[in-house]
């Protein structure tokens, strides 16, 4: 566990050493605002709730989180620093975990900076703050799941563009597996159990469940195990490259 810390620190600092962090945060906040106020018609709805705001997180994350995750391993591979990293006396899982936590903490910073909208609803009305807290937790967990997928994909290539595109596709499949588009396709012929299983893999289903203000253990376990699974895959993928 001791070796996770320096990796985390280096990785987290590296976001802020380049314009990447600032560009990302500005775009993230700007897009959040644009979606919520213009497309989501936040004011016109006249409801003191952040449901619209959180509703767009799924779609924003779909593109923005792979953009954070794509560099995690692809860049190391491209610049050759992966050889340095893997010949330092730390286990691979510590590097994987340190990098993931750093990127996750970074998305956490971006998410936390959306706090003015929370202040806004509280100024304008009397929202259920419990629901809002739960939604923030859910949103953060969902970002972690997207990130774990992106990090694992990033470990397969030295090309960041490929890492980005493949991550978006895989994240998209996870996102929509609960949507009518997919479910209707299965409903026609598959048994209910299978339909439910496919639907249960959806980020949206679990995120919306948390968004209702109830943090159900099942939803936490879902996101937690998904993150653990993809971090495990990440370790295997990095280790596999040793065989040449």
């Amino acid at each position: 566990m001791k070796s996770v810390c320096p990796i985390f620190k280096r990785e987290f600092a590296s976001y802020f050493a380049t314009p990447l962090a600032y560009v990302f945060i500005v775009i993230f906040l700007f897009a959040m605002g644009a979606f919520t106020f213009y497309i989501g018609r936040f004011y016109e709805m006249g409801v003191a709730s952040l449901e619209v705001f959180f509703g767009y997180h799924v779609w924003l994350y779909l593109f923005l989180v792979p953009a954070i995750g794509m560099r995690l391993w692809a860049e190391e591979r491209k610049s050759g620093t992966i050889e340095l990293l893997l010949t330092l006396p730390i286990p691979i899982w510590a590097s994987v975990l340190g990098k993931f936590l750093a990127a996750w903490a970074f998305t956490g910073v971006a998410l936390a900076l959306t706090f003015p909208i929370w202040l806004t609803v509280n100024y304008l009305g009397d929202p259920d703050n419990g629901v809002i807290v739960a939604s923030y937790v859910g949103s953060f967990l969902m970002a972690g799941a997207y990130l774990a997928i992106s990090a694992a994909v990033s470990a397969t290539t030295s090309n960041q563009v490929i890492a980005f595109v493949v991550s978006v596709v895989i994240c998209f499949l996870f996102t929509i597996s609960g949507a009518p588009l997919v479910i209707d396709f299965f409903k026609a012929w598959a048994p209910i159990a299978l339909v439910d299983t496919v639907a249960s893999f959806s980020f949206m289903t679990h995120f919306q469940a948390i968004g209702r203000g109830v943090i159900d253990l099942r939803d936490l376990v879902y996101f937690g195990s998904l993150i653990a699974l993809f971090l495990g895959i990440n370790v295997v993928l990095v280790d596999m490259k040793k065989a040449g």
Partner: protein
Amino acid sequence: MIEIENLTKSFGPIAAVRGIDLRVAKGEVLGFLGPNGAGKSTTMKIIAGYLSPTTGRVRIAGHDVESDLQAAQRVLGYLPEGAPAYGDMTPRQFLKFIAAVRGYSGTEAKDRAALAAQRAELEPVLEQPIDTLSKGFKRRVGLAQAILHDPPVLVMDEPTDGLDPNQKHSVRKLIREMAAEKAIIISTHLLEEVDAICSRAVIIDRGRIVADGTPAELLARSRFHNAVTLTLPATQAASAKAKLATHREVLSIEDGSEHRGLVTLTAFPRNATILIDDVSALATEEKWDVKELYAEPGRLDEVFRSLTTSDSERVRALKEGVAA
């Protein structure tokens, strides 16, 4: 300190390393020579634990690289090919990161980083992002990283590649200073480097060791070893050549082209006999107007060329090997 047994490594159908056995003891500086693509870097990557061997084993200070990787990596300083480093960090930040990863904290981490920077002569650039540094400084950042924990075993892939003569000199000085209490492997294709710092040279070609000995032993394999070269006026060249040829220890004589009325002759001995005394006596006796006279120690580049294959030959052989 470093034990390599029957090491092989294949990438798909291509065998990069084909059975290397090597032991390097404390106090040795081993120069790893070979043409590009001979398997030098692959072998070093396996020693450092970045690649897994196909067969064979590697132990560093008794720790097996396969089964006890972290223990082996703790006692190893490794400079990868091209000295990769995180370009957005400054050398100070980078060395502090390495110190933290290696388990140092507080003032000890700071002191270690400062000492490594000082030994690698990085002080003037400590606060500049590594991306903006010259090639020479980048290489030395990698070097500082490798020696930060004062490891008993040091493996460096082309530590002086791309450095100017002054920088090469200071890096070699640093390696010489550390040589006594460490086991060191450096790879290079600069033959002068072997003479300058190595106590032992290993030449590998197509994944196999083709020569292993001290630089002097390798030089002794050269046909130039103990040959005598003399420069004298072109007018005397023909008679001198005839006279030398009658000497019973002279195997053959080669002459260079005429330059400003002078010709250079090289007399090769039979069985590496020392010829210089006889030739010098002969020159006095015959009153040759000798401008230059010296015994050749041997030529490493010639030994290297005779033992290794050119890359075009090698690719051809590889393709045939794959087809067969």
